[in-house]
């Protein structure tokens, strides 16, 4: 699936429209996306940091797309997630890259990393499991 049709799928999901992100690249093992900062995504109103739950949601969305780019027709079933918060997500775009570590018949394991200006300085890292049956 190409990036254009994957983004058309993204725009059909109400919660993805709320998060306001776009897929930037896609191959059989990876998905990369960019989220635009907005006031409604703030967790700490004093410092204007992204909400931790929003960062986790954005990573989950990117992970699900890496598993099934055609998710609009084939819904993935998230089982659980673990997120390690490494740095505050400040005002500005947030990037996520999901890597399909393992996709079996029943289960998929996906690791995701998010960053802002420097790929080497991760904002958060996450591990997501999905049920495929």
């Amino acid at each position, binding site marked *: 699936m190409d990036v254009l049709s994957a983004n058309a799928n993204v725009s059909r999901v109400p919660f993805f429209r709320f998060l306001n992100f776009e897929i930037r690249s896609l191959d059989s093992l990876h998905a990369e996306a960019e989220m635009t900062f907005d006031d409604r995504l703030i967790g700490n109103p004093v410092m204007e940091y992204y909400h931790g739950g929003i960062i986790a949601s954005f990573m989950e969305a990117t992970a699900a797309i890496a598993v099934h780019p055609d998710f609009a027709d084939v819904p993935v079933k998230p089982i659980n*997630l673990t997120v390690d918060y490494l740095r505050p997500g400040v005002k500005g775009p947030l990037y996520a890259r999901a890597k399909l570590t393992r996709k079996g018949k029943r289960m998929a394991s996906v690791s995701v990393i998010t960053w802002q200006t420097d790929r080497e300085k991760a904002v958060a890292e996450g591990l997501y499991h999905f049920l495929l049956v």
Partner: protein
Amino acid sequence: MSDITKRKMEQIAQMWNARGKGLIKHMALQIEEVSTEGVRVRMPFNPEFCVDADQTRLHGGILTALLDSVFGLANFVAIEGVSTIATLDLRVDYLRPARSRADVIVRAHCFRETRHIAFNSGNVWFEGHEAAEIARGTASFALTRGNTSLFDAMTKGKAS
């Protein structure tokens, strides 16, 4: 909630209900119970948080965000003299598909607090279906303590 001073309750209400911006305001969270034993919060159904076009199924991510927010509240209530609270890590299990248009209820508490770290756990269900939990989460938080109280920063800081 006799163990919480009236002043602190007022602070909590002010902090949560009078927020100018941010996700917590957007989720329209309502505090139902508050004590040092834990907190209970309601999130009204919001079609924006759904994954399907029919808008009957919530995205797991919003439940994760809800848990993270309510953990913050539970910590604020349970821990004295905190100046900042930052999520260190978060683990969420999605126990059932979140298919309903009912309000979502979260109960969370801080089960252990040290000088630097707070440990929390929480449960999520649709109103009226407490026996059928839809998600469960645990998280740890890094605390900094000091004279600048979190409340003062939240209410008198530049975000006002």
